């Protein structure tokens, strides 16, 4: 074989392999989503959303308590995590712009985004569950908000930095104090980006299981009391999938389908907003 042919052949093999890798990525996505879809749709029915769990092993029943519990935990996590994240990002991009402290906090939040979520669960257990003596919905919400804060903070910082400085100068020239400039000019300019950050952070925490295992724990009864253990979809999926009953497995698949669709919709919505606003 001539040298040219060998080089061409080598290139051809390497490029085919990388094409194969790309289709492997697609294949996994289709495989996993398709599997969740098939099993989930089979187990989907109205009583899943409208009734509470049947006694272990018995047929029927639903996961109403888990849907409500998941909703409440996520809602309260969002209500605390988002303001702290947005305000923190504002400090980094505005008041502390270009200072060393802003860089340090920015890097630390990037690290916090990837810190194992189960460690945050153990931390909240020590701070909120152990002193109180019992698991509680509040502890779960706080654990999720701790995960949310760095995500929202970093996207807010990035999005505010994209707002042109001249826009702020124009507002300063009218005599506006900085906080008014931020609230009325900068936030408006970056609204779409901040909203995307919030959507993605909700998508991130809605699927979290590990930090809820020993904070909000689980509850097989319907409960709205955030001061007590409360059921969540993700912990219920873990319990049901590991459990021995066929009926539980089916409900775990159905719950997985609901949560996956919810998260993918949020993710795609976030992408579309970014594409529409920053094209």
């Amino acid at each position, binding site marked *: 074989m001539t040298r040219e042919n060998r080089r061409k052949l080598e290139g051809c093999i390497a490029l085919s392999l990388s094409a194969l890798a790309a289709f492997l990525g697609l294949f996994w996505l289709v495989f996993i989503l398709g599997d969740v879809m098939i099993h989930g749709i089979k187990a989907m029915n109205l009583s899943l959303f409208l009734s509470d769990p049947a006694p272990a092993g018995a047929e029927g029943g639903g996961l109403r308590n888990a849907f409500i519990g998941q909703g409440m935990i996520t809602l309260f996590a969002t209500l605390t995590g988002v*303001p702290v994240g947005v305000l923190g990002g504002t400090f980094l991009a505005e008041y502390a712009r270009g200072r060393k402290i802003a860089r340090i906090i920015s890097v630390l939040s990037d690290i916090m985004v990837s810190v194992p979520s189960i460690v945050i669960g153990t*931390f909240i257990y020590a701070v909120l569950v152990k002193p109180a003596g019992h698991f509680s919905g509040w502890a779960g919400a706080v654990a999720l908000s701790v995960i949310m804060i760095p995500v929202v903070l970093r996207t807010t910082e990035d999005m505010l930095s994209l707002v042109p400085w001249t826009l702020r100068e124009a507002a300063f020239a009218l005599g506006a104090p900085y906080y008014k400039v931020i609230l009325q000019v900068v936030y408006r300019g970056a609204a779409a980006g901040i909203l995307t950050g919030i959507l993605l952070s909700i998508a991130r925490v809605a699927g979290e299981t590990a930090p809820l295992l020993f904070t909000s724990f689980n509850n097989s009864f319907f409960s709205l009391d955030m001061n007590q253990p409360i059921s969540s979809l993700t912990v219920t999926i873990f319990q049901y999938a590991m459990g021995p009953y066929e009926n539980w497995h089916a409900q775990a698949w159905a719950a997985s389908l609901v949560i996956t669709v919810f998260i993918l919709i949020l993710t795609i919505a976030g992408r579309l907003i970014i594409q529409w606003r920053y094209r």
Partner: protein
Amino acid sequence: MFTASKKNPVDRIFSLITALASFSIIILIAGILFVLFSEAMPAIKKFGVVKFLLSTDWDPVKESFGALTNIYGTLLTTLLSLMIAIPIGMGIAIFVTEISPNFLKTPIGTAIELLAAIPSIIYGMWGLFTLSPIMSSTIEPFLKKITADVPLIGVLFQGTPMGIDILTAGVILSIMIIPFTASISRDSFNLTPAVVKESAYAIGATKWEVIKNIVIPYSKLGVFGGIVLSLGRALGETMAVAFVLGNNHRITTSLLDAAATITVTLANEFAEADKDIYLSSLFYLALVLFVMSFITLAIAKYFLLRAERKYSR
């Protein structure tokens, strides 16, 4: 930075609130370190540092605890997942940046991003119900057969293929981290200046030679940062491996054995720990994991920042 506005009292209050909000990150990190450390104190006193890290004991009945089996499981699954994820992730990045026709770029990019968005519990459940039976019935017996007579490698595939083992956990973990490796490699590849690539083409290099000799060396800082970031992610992943790893506190040489990682031990035993020293040892494990992943992520961030600085020049 804006001295004139500082005179406004409302502005001062607002800036203080935002400052407080951003300092919450520092407070959280310091708080996690402090709380985990003080909760782990009884176990640290009882077992010491080196002894705890190197002991293979994990016996709740005798109240004797050591981290080595957990650390071993964590490192082994992580290593395995990286060995699968790095070539595939790089392959995806090469395909998307250099080969793919334009109409395929968006679907593959989106697919990779969606793969990253799927929550880990879904991976775990899919692994338990779908992947694990496939592994135990087809893939693992096949690997066993072809490696049976190969010295050294054969040891890796000894035992009964059950599907609930290190190999399955490694495969699931690799699917989870492929998106990180792929998207960071893609972003780094994209930063190679077209002029440099074109010069290589002009002297007769093939496409693969350009990728191998120009693009990859040029972007190695970013790619390396991405790999270390994936490593940090894999270390702390819980739910994806909790379903398929078993919970076996033993050092094993076979990939077809059940094992335990730090995260899986925490997930399975934390809520059940009935004795103080047991709980304290679990906090000790959490502290070890936190320190391990924090250092790994900090190294990743360091390389990514250096890459950023290099390319922005």
